[in-house]
């Protein structure tokens, strides 16, 4: 079976140990987590993990089965890239003098569709959201001029199909 990128979405209770429990499932199978994001979800008091892995469908199915089995997990799904809308965010910290000394910098900012978050005498901060390759491209463009700091978030994604967590929760409560 061929390896692919999969996004795993986990709806869960917000519990102290759960992240450890979930990451342990990957560890036990020697599968690397490529990116991880934890946030609230569309339902009150329900958290959402968004986990990206590069593996085979057989393994992603196995992992999702194990995740879903955890007591505090309401439901877990996996999707391929075509089934989701996804993004990552990045912050670039760049020396302010470059803004004036290098004409090219202003072009990169304009073309990259990024926003200036703040400007100070020493540095300015650019925020960029988009696909990984767009952020990578921007990174490569800035690199020759020097990047003071760089950080990129985990992937966040929503699916094209419905996930029906609220219905599931109601079902659980009726049991």
């Amino acid at each position: 079976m061929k390896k692919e990128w999969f996004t795993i979405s986990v709806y869960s209770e917000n519990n102290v140990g759960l992240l450890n429990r979930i990451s342990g499932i990957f560890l036990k199978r020697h599968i690397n987590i490529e990116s991880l994001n934890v946030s609230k979800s569309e339902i009150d008091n329900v958290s959402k993990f968004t986990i990206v892995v590069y593996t085979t469908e057989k393994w992603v199915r196995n992992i999702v089965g194990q995740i879903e089995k955890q007591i505090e997990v309401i439901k877990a799904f996996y999707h391929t890239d075509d089934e989701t809308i996804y993004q990552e965010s990045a912050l670039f910290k760049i020396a302010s003098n470059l803004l004036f000394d290098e004409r090219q910098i202003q072009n990169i900012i304009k073309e990259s569709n990024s926003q200036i978050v703040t400007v100070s005498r020493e540095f300015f901060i650019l925020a960029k959201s988009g696909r990984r390759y767009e952020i990578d491209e921007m990174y490569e463009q800035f690199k020759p001029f020097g990047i003071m700091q760089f950080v990129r978030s985990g992937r966040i994604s929503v699916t094209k199909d419905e996930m029906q967590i609220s219905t599931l929760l109601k079902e659980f409560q009726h049991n």
Partner: protein
Amino acid sequence: METLKEQKTAQKTKKSIKISGAEAIIHCLLAEGVDLLYGYPGGAIMPVYDELYKFQDKLTHILTRHEQGAAHAAQGYARVSGRVGVAMATSGPGATNLVTGLADAQIDSTPLVCITGQVTRELLGSDAFQETDIIGISTPVTKWNYQVTKASEIPEIMAKAFYIAKSGRPGPVLVDITKNAQFDELDFSYTPCTGVRSYKPAPTPDIESLKQAADLINSAKKPFIVWGQGVILGKAEQELKELVEKAGIPAAWTIMGASALDSEHPLNVGMVGMHGNYGPNLLTNQCDVLIAIGMRFDDRVTGRLEDYATQAKVIHFEIDPAEVNKNVHADVAVLGNSKETLGLILPMINSKSHESWHNIFKEKYQIEYDTVIKNDIHPTKEGLTMGEVIEEINLASDQKAVIVTDVGQHQMIGCRYAKFKESKSNITSGGLGTMGFALPAAIGAKMGAMDREVVAIIGDGGYQMTIQELGVIFQHNIPVKIVVLNNDHLGMVRQWQELFFDRRYASTVMTNPDFVKIAEGYHIESKRVSERKDLKSTIQYMMASKNPFFLEVKVEKEDNVFPMIPSGAAVSEIRLK
């Protein structure tokens, strides 16, 4: 004046429902019907032990000699009784000593609630004396775990712990309780847990898949059932028997499924797996429909996966959706509790017999009997075999004993040859293969079934891993029968060295102590048998005893267990020698 007095009494009654967290733990256990637990005290759990002292008349605490023993004893108790086993330990080393038992219970789906003490809330993360992150350590080997840091959480968490441990596919739960939560007071009231909103214990059976399964079974020419512990955990023994009989299907068991169907039932064709019976392994690759019930296609059962039952349509009856298609592709998956799903499918099954197909199993059995079994249980050579010891125990116990085995050759021989009439009679460490399991598990098994004989079959190696639990047997006069099959070797590893490592016996030869003297040191009546002429009478004598009894049998040092599916081989490549 009057009002002041009233206020005072009101305060007093309110105070009387306020109890310490430690006392609350006891009330939770009592509310869950627990009357027995195993454990070992220490600093971080002392408030609870202080309460145990006060509640001795309602709750028996057995001090094992090592926390691993407490976990295995709780497992033995749970496995024979079908109830939740409870073990307790202090923080740090007490807690880490439970881990092997947790891992064993996790892989063998045994319901346990383990309670550990923890350093006080303020000290968490300070590397305090005997602080260890038992939540982190136990996470991969528990069904659920939780750290209680406030006394007020205790009733709800304990209720949840018991519910999770025993519902659905059972498993071990660990509750870690900081010392402040044991000392602090709470308003106590207990409501048993009946549901957790994010947890569905068992899937609801789907009628469509039941129909598909029934169609496949009804049209099969060479159907074959392999059942596992799911039948026992689901209390579906009767339904299994009815299915086997109605559909006339030869049925085999995994090591964890042993005893769910009478060993001498005509359609019980034996054990599958690495040292299972010849016919069931071989014919797994000849059946046309493989009906797997409450089993998880462990690698010790399937051998090389790419060549496992590829010709067959597979029906998988399973409670845990994550097990379906994990190792073997299921053509039809019937999800749900085994009692429910088997009960639902029974009326859809046509009465049939598959005589010629069943006869092939009988032929294969004859081959195995002539080449292996006969020599195992009726040997003609001088040295004693493990098989003949088991056979004598079958005879002396009328096949009614609970057989607890450790891990190694004696385990495989024990499970191959022990005969059972009653379910929940074969207690062994199947998934984890934990040497040292049997002695403490036998203690728990006996205490969970006081009306039954419990015989522990242990190797000389594994015996020495938890031998200190003889202290419990002696102190509480627990009438278990301990049989050590002494081959002066780590026999199973030696067998692999003989077969696959050119007889390089690296660290598998043991110079053993005088086991009889050790047992005598614990004031346990003991005997040693080294010759065949003494075997029968000594076993009869042992089984007649009302007290704990230790028997060492000196067996052949270099016997091997056959048949065998070498690791990496297909089930059909099973070797008879």
